[in-house]
């Protein structure tokens, strides 16, 4: 092991470094420039540099950096690109919204960029200390961003997020420390060997109570990050109070990063048959609870951001079906489940951001987040109604949308690995979810509203919304290329 940092290693984390440089640049520009609208331009165009650097790393090789703490492979770079796209769209849809906090626009964009750099680091970290640091690097700026508007609800969601995020990190850390203590390593790659060895010597699950406790605590900590039931209680309150673009960022990027780490840990450490079965039952149960709870509570919501929070919880349940399908492999490796997760997350990125483009614009125009303020949207803006309707179709999982393909793929993998009940559960839940998603469509198209003033779209907004809609439809018809990329990504972490 080499204890010096080499140039090659720096090149491997070039996307993250360029993000932090961009964040610094935005803060400096904020100090010297009077015209703040240029910050949005700089932040969004500057993002093209890390995007280009990430694509440059997408050459199919797996390289280690920093004494094996980071592993830059196809999988990690795939998640980096998801995070970068999410950041780009967040910044594009913040253009009008950020006028709410004139004086602090530089900090706002810089914090988004720093948080995104943490998520990118998380996607390639393969060692507990690095995972923890990257997790906090992504969570702490988010807590500040959630508190950004100086109103009661924003401050309230900020403290809720801060305390619960710290609590979940503490639980996660305790798990990591116990696992470290009883295996002697913090590298998840070595962990699998040690766990397998201890399984041979002992009858107990994970070779002992302490290790089992550690693994359970780690699971709880990550379940919080992806807002899966029963650790979902923070999501509705935080989503409602946070600035709308940040809500979108939280629901997509933060969740994708969480799934990236879970996949890495589960895939390399717990893919052993004996543990795999226990693990699969646990994840499948959490997934079923998440879907049902999210969908049933979403029906009663009157605030669109709360509705989307519960919808996110339900979507986390669907994605976890892929995680359960990964673990119940009978001897042979089956990549359909994990590849399905990657494809689903990509589709979810497009779908959710399409919806949040509309939500942001409507909330700026009407100063309200209630679902009733969407009535008569058809008369106020046809484009917004179209974007929202297509996004709803994709969230329900109707063809021809990316949501449909992703659900077929992920439920199909569950059928193949003997989790038929979970797949049927998922389909039934999708039917329930159609109720509240279509209710929004009905309100937009049919309900009347005395306010028929047209909503003006800016270039950035329509660019973000239309590119998402375009992606939803194209990937719904030709999903092949992304599925192939997802398979390559999953193969790279074995």
């Amino acid at each position, binding site marked *: 092991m080499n204890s010096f940092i080499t140039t090659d290693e720096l090149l491997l984390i070039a996307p993250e470094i360029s993000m932090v440089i961009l964040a610094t640049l935005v803060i400096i520009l904020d100090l010297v420039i009077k015209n703040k609208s240029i910050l949005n331009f700089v932040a969004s165009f500057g993002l093209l540099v890390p995007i280009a650097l990430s694509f440059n790393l997408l050459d199919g090789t797996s390289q280690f950096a920093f004494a094996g703490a980071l592993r830059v492979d196809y999988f990690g770079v795939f998640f980096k690109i998801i995070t970068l796209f999410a950041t780009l769209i967040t910044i594009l849809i913040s253009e009008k919204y950020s006028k709410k906090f004139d004086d602090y626009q530089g900090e706002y964009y810089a914090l988004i960029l720093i948080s995104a750099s943490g998520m990118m680091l998380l996607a390639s970290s393969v060692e507990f200390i690095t995972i923890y640091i990257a997790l906090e690097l992504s969570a702490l700026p988010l807590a500040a961003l959630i508190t950004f508007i100086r109103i009661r609800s924003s401050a*309230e969601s*900020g*403290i809720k997020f801060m*305390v619960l995020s710290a609590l979940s990190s*503490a639980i996660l850390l305790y798990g990591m*420390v116990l696992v470290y*203590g009883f295996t002697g390593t913090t590298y998840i790659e070595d962990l699998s060997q040690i766990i397998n060895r201890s399984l041979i010597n002992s009858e107990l699950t994970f070779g002992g109570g302490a290790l089992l406790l550690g693994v359970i605590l780690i699971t709880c900590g990550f379940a919080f990050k992806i807002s899966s039931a029963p650790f979902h209680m923070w999501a509705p309150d935080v989503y409602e*109070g946070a600035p709308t673009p940040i809500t979108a960022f939280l629901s997509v990027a933060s969740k994708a990063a969480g799934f990236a780490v879970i996949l890495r840990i589960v895939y390399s450490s717990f893919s052993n048959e004996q543990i795999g079965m226990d693990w699969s039952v646990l994840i499948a149960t959490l997934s079923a609870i998440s879907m049902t709870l999210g969908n049933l509570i979403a029906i009663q*919501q009157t605030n669109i951001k709360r509705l989307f929070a519960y919808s996110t919880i339900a979507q986390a349940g669907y994605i976890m079906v892929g995680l359960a399908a990964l673990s119940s492999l009978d001897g042979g490796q089956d990549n359909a489940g994990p590849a399905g997760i990657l494809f689903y997350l990509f589709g979810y990125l497009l779908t959710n951001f399409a919806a949040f483009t509309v939500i942001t614009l409507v909330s700026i125009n009407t100063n309200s987040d209630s679902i009733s303020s969407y009535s008569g949207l058809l008369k106020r803006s046809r484009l917004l109604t179209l974007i929202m309707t297509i996004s709803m179709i994709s969230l329900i999982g109707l063809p021809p949308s990316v949501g449909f393909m992703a659900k077929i793929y992920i439920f199909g993998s569950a059928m193949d690995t003997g989790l038929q009940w979970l797949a049927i559960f998922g389909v039934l839940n999708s039917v329930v979810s159609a109720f509240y998603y279509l209710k929004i469509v009905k309100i937009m198209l049919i309900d009347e509203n005395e306010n028929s003033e047209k909503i003006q779209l800016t270039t950035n907004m329509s660019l973000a919304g239309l590119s998402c809609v375009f992606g939803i439809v194209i990937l719904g018809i030709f999903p092949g290329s992304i599925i192939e990329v997802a398979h390559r990504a999953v193969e790279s972490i074995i």
Partner: protein
Amino acid sequence: MTLERFLIIGAILFSIGLYGVLSKKHSIAVLMSLELMFNGINVTAVALSRYTVPYLLTTHSGEKVVQYLLTGQIFTIFIITVAAAEVALGLAIIIAIYRTHQSVLLTDSNQLKN
């Protein structure tokens, strides 16, 4: 002193902290309880690092090297650093809460509900 004693102390600190986070009404007390949880983890990490024999499986670069590992201690230093940042941010948010609510009791922050 045996390893068990350290682990028990760590577990007790962690549990008291957890109880405090879940039951305290005052947001500063919640932050203090969080610190207690992190300190319980620190005690556990250092004790485990000191008492368990550190053996190294170097599969990263292919060669086998015998090293004395201080991973637990290093972990602790990182935890302390991040916890400090967390508290700084927590206090900033509590000030924001105080400005909007005129109170730092978490029971007064109950606007967001179903």
